[in-house]
């Protein structure tokens, strides 16, 4: 009886230790995997600075394209990447800065790019269309409205931040 009890507890002991060791091993394997999985999210969250893009006095009710550069940090080096925005004032006089990146597969859209669709943004790749406010036109490939840049106006200069899906910006 006492021997049986002893054996059981030894088995239990082994069980515990092995689970413990296995746990360590699993943790050793999993934690880098989790890190990798989370890494892009962590990276994206590391906020982006606002960049001066245009003078407010140059902004009209007609969308104009402004090109600028943002610093992008990649694990090893920092580089400058070109960006563009379609900027205009809406009926209320508020500034709207749209990302030109088509929500279908990422081509660059143009204002009035298609003669038969005036006053719309046009994507030449698969003929995607967006209204002036960025809303995607039904029955064209884009599944969502154009992203909007976060913006700030300081001393007559327009600064743009990150482009965000509509509803978030």
């Amino acid at each position, binding site marked *: 009886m006492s021997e049986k009890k002893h054996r059981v507890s030894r088995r239990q002991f082994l069980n515990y230790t092995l689970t413990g060791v296995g746990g360590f091993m699993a943790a050793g394997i999993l934690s880098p995997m989790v890190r990798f999985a989370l890494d892009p999210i962590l990276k994206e969250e590391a906020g982006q600075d606002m960049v001066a893009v245009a003078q407010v006095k140059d902004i009209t009710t007609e969308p104009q394209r402004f090109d600028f550069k943002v610093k992008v940090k990649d694990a090893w080096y920092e580089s400058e990447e*070109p960006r563009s925005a379609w900027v205009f004032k809406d009926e209320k006089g508020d500034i709207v800065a749209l990302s030109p990146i*088509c929500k*279908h*597969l*990422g*081509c*660059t859209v143009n204002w009035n790019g298609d003669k038969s669709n005036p006053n719309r943004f046009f*994507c*030449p*790749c*698969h003929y995607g269309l967006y209204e002036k406010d960025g809303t995607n036109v039904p029955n064209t*490939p884009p599944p969502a409205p154009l992203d909007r840049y976060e913006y700030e106006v300081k001393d007559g200069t327009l600064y743009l931040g990150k482009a965000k899906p509509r509803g978030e910006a």
Partner: protein
Amino acid sequence: MKWTAKDVDAYHQAKEYVDTALVPCIPIGSTNMKAFAEMSEHTLFITNEVERQFKGRVMLFPPLTYFVQEQIQARVHEWTNVLKQAGFQHVCFVTSHADIADDSFIYVPALPLEHADEAYKQKVVRQQVEQVMDALVAKWTLKN
């Protein structure tokens, strides 16, 4: 899209939309190296920029690289056939190398060194990027 594992994944998801192959053609010479290096830089810069704006429909392939004394036409034909078979309806070659630039290429001359003027350079580069994009759009509209 670019020839990277990540973009190729995206390509497999959207194959029917990516119907254009863009191939930079890069000469290598053992004399006059600097001029060829410049052509290389220039062609790659232009094709990268075109890819950025036309990502959703264009696959930018790694360059077709050749020695200046090589006969390039046969290889261009072969690449065209293989890529067409792979499902790319439009195959476009871009080069800064005047000696090979016939109708099968889009020719984008590299800038003469003497022009140090940044603004001028940028303007020419922008025009050439547009020239290549216009050529692609023209192919697309012909087909549709």
